[in-house]
């Protein structure tokens, strides 16, 4: 059963068509990579799917329910959570508090909430920072915090917007491992926007290519990277093997 269905979605801003007729489905437990040139509409797509924007046309369905235009907090509580490209920590709180906040909707008791949050913080490798104010984190730390917060919500579907950006290659491995494990052990469905092709090739079951607001191609990583149109629009002459 498709856990996420996007059909006929279009969104314009003052005459500029950010998205046109976008249509795709994601199966439960699947990992879908979303790639495309800058300005292709990838983040707009995430905004629409997660409720931050209401599309002009089309529907978004999550776990069989029509969630088009619902407020982002309702969709998040239902189990579909996204991260942001720009890091947005809660500046007045510590790392642990940031993560605990994300888990609040579970309605745990105080002790359980703290344990759960601490566990997530350790899992993403931010243990030493748990009681520091969030703004003190270095860039890589903020990225992990973003991830940690979404993990703390115990999501069914995770929308990751360039979660690897700003990380050096050595820092990327653990994140990719973590994401793969999320799917294996907890059945989390992942949609992730990424520019680093090596990561996409490694992690994604299928890849969706967006160009100028339209779906250019959908298929396995191999299919997509050998698709002439995709190479033309985005990949260039040789498929990039960005540092693994």
């Amino acid at each position: 059963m498709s856990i996420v269905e996007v059909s006929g979605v279009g969104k314009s801003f003052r005459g500029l068509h950010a998205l046109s007729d976008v249509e795709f489905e994601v199966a439960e437990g699947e990992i879908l990579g979303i790639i495309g040139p800058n300005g292709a509409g990838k983040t707009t797509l995430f905004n629409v799917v997660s409720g931050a924007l209401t599309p002009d046309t089309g529907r978004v369905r999550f776990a069989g329910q029509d969630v088009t235009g619902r407020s982002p907090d309702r969709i998040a509580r239902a189990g579909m959570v996204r991260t942001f490209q720009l890091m947005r920590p809660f500046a007045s709180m510590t790392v642990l508090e940031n993560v605990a906040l994300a888990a609040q909707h579970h309605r745990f008791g105080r002790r359980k909430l703290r344990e759960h949050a601490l566990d997530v913080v350790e899992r993403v490798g931010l243990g030493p920072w748990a009681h520091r104010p969030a703004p003190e984190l270095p860039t890589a730390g903020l990225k992990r915090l973003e991830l940690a917060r979404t993990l703390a919500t115990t999501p069914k579907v995770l929308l990751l917007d360039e979660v690897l950006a700003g990380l050096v290659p050595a820092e990327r491995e653990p994140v990719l491992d973590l994401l793969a494990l999320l799917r294996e052990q907890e059945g989390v469905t992942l949609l992730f926007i990424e520019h680093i092709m090596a990561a996409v090739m490694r992690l994604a079951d299928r890849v969706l290519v967006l160009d100028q607001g339209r779906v250019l191609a959908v298929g396995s990583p191999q299919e997509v990277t050998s698709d002439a149109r995709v190479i033309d629009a985005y990949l260039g002459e040789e498929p990039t093997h960005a540092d693994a």
Partner: protein
Amino acid sequence: MTNTTHGAPLAPEVSPPQTKTKAGGGFLGRAGIVGGVLVIAIVIALLRSGSGLVVWQSVVTGILTGGLYGLIAMGLTLIFGVLDIVNFAHGALLAVAMFISFGMVSATGMHPYLTLVIAIPALFLIGAAVHRGLLSGSGGKSLENQLLITLGLSLLLENGLLMFFGAEPKAIALPGDFQFPLLGAVVAGSRLYAFLGAIALGALLYWLLRRTRLGTAIRAVAANGPGAELVGINVRRIHTLTFAIGTACAGAAAALAGPLVTVTPTLGEQFNITAFVVVVLGGMGNVVGALVGGLLIGLVEQLTTIYLGGQSSLLGVFVVFILVLFLRPQGLFGRKTA
């Protein structure tokens, strides 16, 4: 505070909020709606008062007073459009100018309108000082801080005036004031002159913005601060100049309005409120909008007096304010962000 609206790119804090409705599309559409509302308002006033003459008098008084409001609001909206600063002290600065005018008139017996020559430069300098001293630099950057600073300034100025001049109302008489009839309505000369002066100065400001190099630089900074800096414009200097021009407008309006009102330290508050409503109605940052908005608010004020009697003219103004804030926050001439 980094609140952003639903998914919009990080918009400047004071930008108009997004609306879900499309109230009043193209220019003709908006003009039509405004015209229609006016017609209805006048008809209601006619029914209420039963006298065409009373209504005509209101219309005339409203438009003439509205010109003044427009001038005050022009300064305020210019400051907002270029510096993104909501100047809560605008009304208080106007009151200061009015006391300067009063002071000069009582000390030297000069003609009230001659005080324009003093009030305009004085307020220009005061504005420049305020900007340099209080608002430019890191402390003043965030929205809340800037609101608080201008609020503090308005309290300071108003109560300073109260302390030094006392609360008793003063009057500035216009020598040779007269009244002339206009198709049955009675127009006080002072009101007519104020209107003409406001329109003249407004036109001057418009000319400055559109036809001079300084004006172009100002508009460039308003449109794109960093971009303007890149082409060599001294943005900080433009900011200070613009703020000073804005406060100078308040100074001019004060000198023109002197003979029309009773001068008290709290006078600024009333003009402040009206100026803000005019600015929101016209569109924050739009100078022409400020003038049009001024005229409309002048009308609203007078017509409300017919509906509700004496005290409540401000109530009608507030109703318009609330309606604009919720239905079309970008005002008549503003544009929606993203």
